[in-house]
C-alpha cells in the first residue's frame, strides 16, 4: 500500500489526511506496534515510523527523548522492518529516518527489506534530492515513495527541484525550527503550501507543531495532510504508565481525526 492509496481515499471524502508519527521501539518494541495500531484504529490515514538515531538534529526534546529511550532499550535498525510487517496492510507505512542509518544498512538493501516488509516509502529529513542519487535509484527499483521536505526558506528553484524528486506526497516543514508541539500553528505554512502547489499536483503534508484537533482543522483547510509527531510521543513521555499512554494516544488521535474531518 502506497501513500497515493490513502490520499485517493481522503480526497474522495473531501478532507485532509491525518499522518501520525511515532519512533519504532518506543516506548518498547511491542508497545510501538500496539501504538501504531491504536493510531490506525482511531483515524490515522498514514503512519510515519521514526528510526531512533543518536544525533537527531531536526528533532526537538520530545522526539529526542523518545529516541534515546528506544536506543537505551536496545533498538536496532532492522527492527523497523519487524514493526512495519506487523502493522502494514491497513494504511500506508512510511519510515522517517536520518540518512546515516539507511546508508549504514545499505541503501539498496534497506529498500529491498523495507519493501518486502510492506513499507510504502521513506521520508528523509536530512537528505536533499541533490545528494539522493542512490536512494532515487533504489526507490525506483523497489517501487517506494520518496518524500523530501520543502521549507519556508526554500527558493522557487529548490521547491521545483524538490517536488520533482518526490513521489507519494511532499512534506512541507511549516516553521523554521525543530519538531515539537506548539501552542500556535505556523503563519509561514499557508504561504509555503501555496508556493509548493504552483509546482506540483502531489499532495502536500504540513508538519511540525500540531497538537490538537483545532490546529489540525486549521491546517486541513489548506493542506492535504496534517502530520503530527511530538504530540503523539508526549502521550507516553507524560506518564510512566504505558497503558495510560495508549489511552492518551487513542484520545489524541481521535481528536486530530475529528479535526481533519471538519
Amino acid at each position, binding site marked *: 500500500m502506497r501513500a497515493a492509496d490513502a490520499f485517493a481515499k481522503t480526497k474522495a471524502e473531501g478532507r485532509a489526511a491525518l499522518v501520525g508519527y511515532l519512533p519504532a521501539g518506543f516506548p518498547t518494541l511491542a508497545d510501538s506496534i500496539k501504538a501504531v495500531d491504536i493510531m490506525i484504529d482511531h483515524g490515522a490515514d498514514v503512519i510515519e515510523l521514526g528510526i531512533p538515531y543518536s544525533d537527531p538534529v*531536526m528533532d526537538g526534546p520530545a522526539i529526542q527523548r523518545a529516541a534515546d529511550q528506544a536506543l537505551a532499550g536496545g533498538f536496532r535498525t532492522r527492527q523497523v522492518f519487524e514493526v512495519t510487517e506487523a502493522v502494514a496492510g491497513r494504511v500506508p507505512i512510511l519510515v522517517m529516518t536520518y540518512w*546515516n542509518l539507511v546508508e549504514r544498512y545499505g541503501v539498496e538493501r534497506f529498500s529491498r527489506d523495507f519493501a518486502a516488509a510492506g513499507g510504502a516509502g521513506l521520508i528523509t529529513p*536530512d537528505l536533499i534530492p*541533490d*545528494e539522493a542519487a542512490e536512494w532515487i535509484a533504489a526507490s525506483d527499483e523497489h517501487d517506494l515513495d520518496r518524500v523530501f521536505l520543502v*521549507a519556508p*526558506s526554500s527558493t522557487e528553484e529548490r521547491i521545483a527541484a524538490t517536488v520533482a524528486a518526490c513521489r507519494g506526497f511532499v512534506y512541507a516543514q511549516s516553521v523554521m525550527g525543530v519538531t515539537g508541539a506548539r501552542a500556535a500553528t505556523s503563519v509561514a505554512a499557508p504561504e509555503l503550501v501555496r508556493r509548493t502547489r504552483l509546482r506540483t499536483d502531489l499532495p502536500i503534508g504540513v508538519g511540525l507543531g500540531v497538537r490538537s484537533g483545532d490546529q489540525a482543522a486549521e491546517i486541513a483547510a489548506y493542506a492535504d495532510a496534517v502530520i503530527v509527531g511530538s504530540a503523539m510521543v508526549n502521550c507516553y513521555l507524560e506518564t510512566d504508565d504505558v497503558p495510560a499512554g495508549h489511552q492518551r494516544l487513542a484520545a489524541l488521535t481521535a481528536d486530530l481525526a475529528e479535526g481533519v474531518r471538519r
Partner: protein
Amino acid sequence: MPNPDATGHWGEFGGRFVPEALIAALDELERAHTEALADPAFTDELDRLGREYGNLPSPLYLAERLSEEAGVEVWLKREDLNHTGAHKIRNVLGQALLTKRMGKTRIIAETGAGQHGVAAATAAAYFGLECTVYMGEEDTRRQFLNVARMRLLGAEVVPVTTGSRTLKDAMNEALREWVASVDHTHYLIGSVGGPHPFPQLVRDYCRGIGDEARAQFLDRTGALPDVVAACVGGGSNAMGIFTAFLDDASVKLYGFEAGGDGYDTGRHAATITAGQIGVLHGARTFVLQDEDGQTIESHSISAGLDYPGVGPEHAHLAATGRAVYEPVDDAEAMAALEKLARTEGIICAIESAHGLAGALRLAKSLEPGARVLVNLSGRGDKDMGNVVEYYGFAGAPEKKEA
C-alpha cells in the same frame, strides 16, 4: 586552491546532509564567502585584524634542544602565541567579519572544552555581535574557567543536556538553533566539518598557517620541510597548515588523531584510523559509529580532539593517500608535552602535543637532519588542570628536613 566540486564534495566526501530549511542559508554563505575572498576591502581588513589584533603572522621557531634529542630538525609553527592562544582566532575573525558583511547581527557556536567558544566570544566582542555558545553540560562543569571567560566576554553559554552531553551534542543543538534563527544568525562553526561550504570556508580562514609557514620555511632554510605534522580532531589546524603544501609532492603530510586510552582499547577518537564512512553533522566523512550507524562516543585526554567525526577534506586526503593519519594515545601525547616543556620552555596544548608526539615518533624513521614542521596549534594554559591530574603535581611542595 584545491576546492571541492560545485556541490561541495571532495571525491565521495563532504556534501550537504542537512534539512532543506538550511540550504538557502548555506547557499547565501557560499556566495558571500566567495565574494568576500575576491574583495580586497575584505581581505585587507582581515589581514589587518590578524596583524594588529591576532598577533599574526605567528613565528616559525627551530626547537634546537628538542631537535638534538629527536635527531631531526623540529620546526614549530607557533600558533600558541596568537591572541586567545590558538589558531582558532584566524577562523573566528574570518567568519565574524563575514557575518558583518552578510548583515547578520548574531553568532552561535558549539564548543567542547571551550576554546572555540572563547575564540567566538572574543570575535563577537570585537565586532559587537550577539553571541550564544552551546556546550555540553558536563563540559561546562569541567571547564568552568572557560565558561567564565565566555561570560566575561559577553556571550551567553547554554549547557546542552541532550544525548551524551558532549561536543557532538553541542553541535546538534547549534544546528537546531540555527534552523530557527538563520535569518539574522550565523553559525560560526569551530572546525572544518559540517555541510558545504563550512569545511572549505573554515579551511580558507585557517590556511594562513601554512601559507605563512611555507614562506617562512623557504626564507629560513631555502627549502621545503620533509614532513608537515599536525593533530587532527575536526581538523582545522591541520587543514590550515596542510593546504599550502598539498601541491608540494616532496612534502609528506601527517595528521595525528587522538588514540585515547590506546587504539586497541576502543576508547579513542581516531576517526580516520578506525571509523567507517558515514554521515554526521551534515557531511559524508569518516565517523565512529556502530553497526547500525549510531554515533559512538569518542575518548581522549584532549577535549579539542574528542570528536567522533572529522572534516571531509581530511577524509579525502586519507582516501587518496595524500596525507597519512595515525593515532597517538594519551600517554604518548603527555610525554611529548612534558618533553617540549623541559627542552624548550614551551607548554603547549594537549591537542598540539598529539601532533608533536606523532612527529617525534616519525622522526625515528627519518634520515638524520630531516626537517619536520609541526603545527603547535595552541598553548597549554587551559590544560593545567589535566596536567596536574595526570602527573600528580598537585599538593604543597615537599618540605626539606631541617
